[in-house]
């Protein structure tokens, strides 16, 4: 489907904020008094990222004047639930970060509650994508694992990178083994997701889409001069193989390899390299989300795929057989026969 900036920003920033606040909630009991200010700053960064994601989501609504109806279908719509849970997450995280912080009374409880709400918000967002049967690439529990894993790993890597160049270097060394374990788990999940995307590309069948009992079949005409990519964003041209390879290589490098190197650098007291790993994870989350949308296959692609233009095999410019050319050469022109 067509990747759109508001959705990429919403999901990436929401995941980053959740990863940050979950890391803060985990680090708080081990933090020294001099590190509490840094953890407060991390909470505030998380709240700003989450709020920015919420603002970005408004740009995805093309008629925000109707947004007041968005909670009408809480019983059936994951988007209604996403609006509610993400709104609660942003509100509570912002309140905790800018009032209590990591130093005030009840700071640990505030961080844990915020992290819990973040878990629910990111989980609901992931379920929104995973529960659409027509989106063949996403209709799988792997989608939930991938979105939650990306959020947690990118947020923790960013926290660890910032800690390594700040007063929280000891906290960074505490988190590094867990970040490495998280990256290993996310690598496995992304591998499963690549397989799921491949299965989705192979899904459409001529039989189910046309009632034709036997193939092979091919699309001749989508009904209009070209597929409706402008009015139907759920379909998008298939990514060329080179773009797909480059995209997933970028994701592997920025979301998995460099953050893993950063975690090792944090243990080895290389603050700058650890910070680079954290920033790389945030960039990698954007690249991962772009590929998540751009490489996704919708069931309607079967009727809208780009058809390669090929010359007719019946009326092609093939040369006449030799005997035909000899016969035509032997026959005198009509004017001579008269």
């Amino acid at each position, binding site marked *: *489907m067509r990747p759109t900036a508001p959705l990429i920003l919403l999901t990436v920033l929401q995941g980053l904020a959740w990863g940050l606040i979950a890391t803060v909630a985990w680090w708080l009991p081990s933090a020294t008094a001099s590190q509490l200010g840094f953890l407060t700053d991390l909470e505030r960064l998380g709240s700003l990222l989450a709020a920015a994601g919420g603002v970005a989501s408004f740009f*995805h*609504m*093309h*008629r*925000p004047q*109707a*947004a007041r*109806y*968005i*909670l*009408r*279908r809480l019983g*059936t*719509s*994951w*988007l*209604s639930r996403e*609006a509610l849970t993400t709104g609660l997450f942003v509100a509570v995280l912002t309140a905790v970060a800018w009032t209590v912080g990591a130093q005030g009374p009840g700071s640990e409880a505030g961080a844990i509650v915020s992290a819990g709400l973040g878990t629910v918000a990111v989980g609901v967002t992931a379920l*929104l994508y995973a529960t*659409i*049967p*027509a*989106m063949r690439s996403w209709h799988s529990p792997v989608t939930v694992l991938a979105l939650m894993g990306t959020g947690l790993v990118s947020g923790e890597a960013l926290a660890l990178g910032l800690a390594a160049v700040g007063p929280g270097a000891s906290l960074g060394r505490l988190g590094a083994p867990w970040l490495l374990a998280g990256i290993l788990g996310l690598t496995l999940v992304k591998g499963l997701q690549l397989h799921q995307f491949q299965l989705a590309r192979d899904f459409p069948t*001529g039989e*189910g*889409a*046309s*009632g*034709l*009992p*036997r*193939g*092979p*079949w*091919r*699309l*001749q*005409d*989508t*009904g*209009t*001069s*070209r597929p*409706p990519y*402008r*009015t*139907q*964003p*759920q*379909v998008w041209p298939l990514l060329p193989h080179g773009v797909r390879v480059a995209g997933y290589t970028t994701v592997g490098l920025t979301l998995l390899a460099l953050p893993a190197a950063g975690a090792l650098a944090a243990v080895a007291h290389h603050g700058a390299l650890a910070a680079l790993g954290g920033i790389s994870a945030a960039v990698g989350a954007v690249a991962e989300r772009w590929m998540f949308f751009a490489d996704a296959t*919708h*069931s*309607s*692609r079967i*009727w*809208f795929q780009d058809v390669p233009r090929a010359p007719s*095999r*019946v009326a092609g410019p093939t040369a006449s057989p030799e005997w035909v050319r000899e016969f035509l050469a032997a026959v005198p022109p009509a004017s001579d026969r008269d």
Partner: protein
Amino acid sequence: MQLTILTDLNKCVGCKSCQVSCKTHNTAGAFGPVPDHDPYRDPDGMWWNRVVALEAGEYPHTAVLYLPKACMHCYDAPCVPVCPTGASYKRADNGVVLVDYETCIGCQLCLWACPYGVREFDEHEGVVKKCTLCVDRLEDPTLPPEDRQPACVQSCPTHARIFGDLDDPESEVSRLVAERQGFTLLPELGARPAVHYLPRRPAPSPLGGQDWTMQEEADPT
């Protein structure tokens, strides 16, 4: 009651008159204009009904199938429960799936949820639009009874499209679906579409077999 359209794929010749008449009626009619905001520079405007052409088989044992495809007005329409505002809804009295433009926020989640790619996003008005089964014609008391049917059904020159109530076992559409193995598209996705198609019948082939479906038996070598 579940109003529906049945298309006989043996009769459809791919003339696209249903596609054009849909566009004409819904652009000029009182309900749901189908816009072409830039028709000369970008001719791919909005279409609620598209006739897809498919070629099946291996040359020379091939057949071309024309498949008119609009909203399926599914019994379990997946576009309805995902809508956060309730703008997408299914009418209880006749089963037609409609969009309330006033409450649509343009999030396009229903486009993802629809397995058939028959909803269209109007980026200028910021809402999603789709086939209404010409509900404005069906309920227009000023029209004579024989004209109270969708524009695509009325304009079909081969009478390939039949309009009726699928829940009425005595209706023509129900009888034809039962007698001639009427089928729906992508049944494995569980939407239970109301729109049905009558399958192609085998036809004699000058190359020896019955048709492309019998290509193993019809190998000319």
